[in-house]
């Protein structure tokens, strides 16, 4: 069990080292066997990980990985959380104090903005908001995986969902100001992703040959 955890930690250290240092990652993995024989695999593995993490800001790929994690966890996930928190107390993006979706579902609320004329649109809009939330939660995954094709598809879907919500919020004579924050969040997110995509294109490629397989 300890050896398995140590192998996972050394593998993580190898990821932090990046493609440029793949040979060193393999060297650490090989040396871990000696540490296992010596009964100190975890200390060895933890050292490799801290060394790799400390070195990340020193190389281009490490800086890119740190920036990607910062955008994914510090920007995109909070935007998703903001959408969730906006959806739970009210719909769409109504502040607390309104009955919102919960009131509409319960039938006993007194929504300030939803009325007999527009409440029929709530299920479709609610689904759209939930799809947008799902899109924001999936985005960090694809971004950290550097799966740019999926990132592009998801960015288009999120942009389309936000635009649709914005339009229908207006058509239903709901307060548009509650759409400004998600729209601004989406714009910032798309800009950050575009910058990361360009940055990734300028990163040096992996070494063409590794001495051993």
């Amino acid at each position, binding site marked *: 069990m300890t050896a398995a955890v140590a192998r996972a930690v050394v593998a993580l250290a190898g990821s932090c080292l990046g493609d440029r240092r793949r040979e060193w990652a393999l060297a650490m993995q*090989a040396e871990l066997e*000696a540490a296992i024989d010596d009964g100190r695999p975890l200390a060895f593995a933890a050292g490799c990980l801290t060394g790799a993490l400390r070195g990340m800001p020193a190389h281009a790929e490490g800086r890119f990985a740190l920036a990607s994690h910062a955008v994914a966890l510090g920007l995109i996930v909070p935007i998703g959380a903001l959408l969730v928190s906006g959806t739970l107390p009210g719909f769409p993006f109504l502040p607390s104090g309104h009955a919102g979706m919960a009131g509409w579902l319960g039938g006993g609320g007194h929504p300030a903005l939803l009325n007999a004329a527009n409440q029929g649109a709530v299920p479709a809009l609610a689904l759209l908001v939930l799809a947008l939330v799902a899109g924001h939660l999936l985005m960090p995954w694809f971004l950290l995986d550097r799966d740019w094709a999926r990132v592009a598809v998801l960015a288009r879907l999120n942009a389309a969902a936000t635009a649709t919500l914005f339009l229908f919020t207006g058509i239903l004579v709901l307060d548009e100001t509650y759409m400004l924050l998600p729209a601004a969040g989406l714009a910032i997110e798309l800009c950050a992703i575009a910058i990361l995509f360009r940055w990734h294109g300028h990163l040096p490629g992996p070494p063409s040959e590794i*001495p051993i397989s």
Partner: protein
Amino acid sequence: MASGRRPSKQMLTLLGILSAQAQQWRHGYDLMKETGLLSGTLYPLLMRMTDQGLVEAEWREPAQPGRPARHAYRLTAKGLALALATEEERSLLGLTAFPA
């Protein structure tokens, strides 16, 4: 000196160990035990010294079957020259191998 800066105490220690048997290839874990450096210090140091042309690395066949090939290290001529140039500094600092 390769980087134009004074070698760190850790680098001096590693230079001392590697220059003691300059022609011999040494494995990372053995170097850890001999120098007393932790893996989080030793590997970044070896990478930096390799980048600076002070250390050369080579893959060596495993001693036991079924084990992966191991990376081994030794000083280059440049590394050996640095070791010799810093010999006095190392003795002043009392830098021999740290206890493992």
